[in-house]
Each structure stands twice: as C-alpha cells, then as structure tokens.
C-alpha cells in the first residue's frame, strides 16, 4: 500500500476564482469581502497556467488542499478518482467539498467571457457572484 495522504478536495465544474474565494472565506476568518476577493483573484491568476484537473493549492498549509475541476459529469470524474486511487493501491482518505452548487450562471458567464478574451467584465461578474455568496454565508 502506498502512503496515505489526507486531502481536502474542492470539487467544481470549471476553473474560476470561486474555490479560492471559498477557501479564504472558510479558512481566513475576520477579513472583509474586498480583502478576500482580492486575495482570491491573485491566487486564481497564479494557478491559472497550471491547467490541471486535480490542482494542488497552498502547499504551505498543513492540510493538503486540492481543487478538482470535474466538468459537468461530476459522478464520472469522482468515480474515476476513487477507481484510480484503488487501482494504484493508494489508501486514500479525503474530504470532498462540493462547491459546484455555488457556481451560478454569473460565474459560468464570466468564465465564457474570459475564454473569448474579455478582461474586466468577467472579473466584475465573478465579484458579483462572490458577493452574493458572501452575503448568504454571513447572514
């Protein structure tokens, strides 16, 4: 058996600032919305070029944090993840946080706009989407 690694996996359908925003919201309490969103955008840009499906983030943290960009067919990807870990004899122990329910249409529209080359409008849409989440969680 290979070494057991405890993982926390944020599951989302597409790459966006959202998992980073939620990470700061849950793990960096006491900060304002603007502070959290700015930090999230910086990290989103930092990791953007890695283009991985299972992306390791914040390696300096004691918890092993990952973002799993599963696309629309989450069940297929999750079953593949479990199957591959079993195939290689890896005794996995991970906590899955499904954040895809926070990916509203604003977020998806922003992602689409980025892909066609727009810059500031997608960021504003992400900000709007994150602000909705921030308000809901704080309330």
């Amino acid at each position, binding site marked *: 058996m290979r070494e057991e*690694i405890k993982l926390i996996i944020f599951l989302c359908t597409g790459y966006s600032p959202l998992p980073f925003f939620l990470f700061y919201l849950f793990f960096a309490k006491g900060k304002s919305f603007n502070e959290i969103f700015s930090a999230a955008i910086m990290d989103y840009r930092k990791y953007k070029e890695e283009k991985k499906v*299972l*992306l390791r983030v914040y390696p300096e943290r004691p918890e092993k944090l990952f973002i799993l960009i599963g696309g629309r067919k989450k069940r*297929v*990807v999750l*079953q*593949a993840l479990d199957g591959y870990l079993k195939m290689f004899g890896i005794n996995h122990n991970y906590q899955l946080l499904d954040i895809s329910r926070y990916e509203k249409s604003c977020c998806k529209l922003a992602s689409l706009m980025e892909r066609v080359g727009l810059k500031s409008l997608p960021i504003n849409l992400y900000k709007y989407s994150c602000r909705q989440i921030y308000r809901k969680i704080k309330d």
Partner: protein
Amino acid sequence: MIVLYHCYGAAHSSVLSAAIHLGLLADDRIPGIKEIREIPYFDRNKTEEIGIPFLYGIDKWGNKIYVQGMGGSDRIVINLLKDIMALYGIPEREILLVNALENVNILVRIGGFLSRRLGLVFPGRVISIIGLQLAYPKFLRTVQRVKDYIAKFYEM
C-alpha cells in the same frame, strides 16, 4: 504494467478489446454472436457505473488489464489520471491507455444506444455485436499493437 482499455460506457468496445487481449476470443477468425455475447461484462455496465475502472483480468505476462467507460469526459478523466500519477510519483510508463472507441462503427454506436440508453437490450445487443464483428480486424490490430508495445517495454 496496467493496460486500460477505455470507451464511452465500458459495455462493448473496451470489453471486447480486453477479452481479445486475454485470449477469451479468437485472434485468427471472427467470433460468432454467441461467443461475443458471452464474454464477461459484455453489455452489462450500467450508466451509473460509468467512470469506474475495473479489473478485467491479468494477462499471461502479469499485466493488469482494466476496462473503463469515460462517459465522453475522456480529456478530463485522462488528465485526472495523469495528475494523480504525478502527485504520487507513479511513472507514466506504468500505465498504457488504449482508446477502444476508435475502432467502433455506426452499428456499435446504435446498438449501444438502444441497449444501454433506451433499455432495448435484445435488439441493441444484436446490432452492436454485428457491428463489432464487422470491425473485429481493427480490434485485433489494436490489441496486437498493445502486445508489441508491452513486449518492447519489457525488453528495455
């Protein structure tokens, strides 16, 4: 080494390829309908099982032969596999991915759709088997290329 034959639903083309690899089907003639129908897991995988790689058997050289349906999310699932291997330090040469879907024809697709999606198992199965019989030489060539690759791999 692990050999992973993959297709859409792990019901037809990947299962057939794995069966050929393991010698469950003839490699010198086209098998009959009954022979294909009776290979393990043929047209059995359910939609909710798509994504799960499962061990089909072990070949005579000790390689593990897996079968997996990727549900049309091939790019994501294959990249996930590569990311996992990189994360755990598993060399890429330990696994060989074979896309069995490249060998299917329209009959196999129609038969698969009828059987797995619409639940019309009997006609779907028959149509897909006829399609597989027509494409059988292609499957044989693919499996032979896999075996040649494995032989070269062990020579190195």
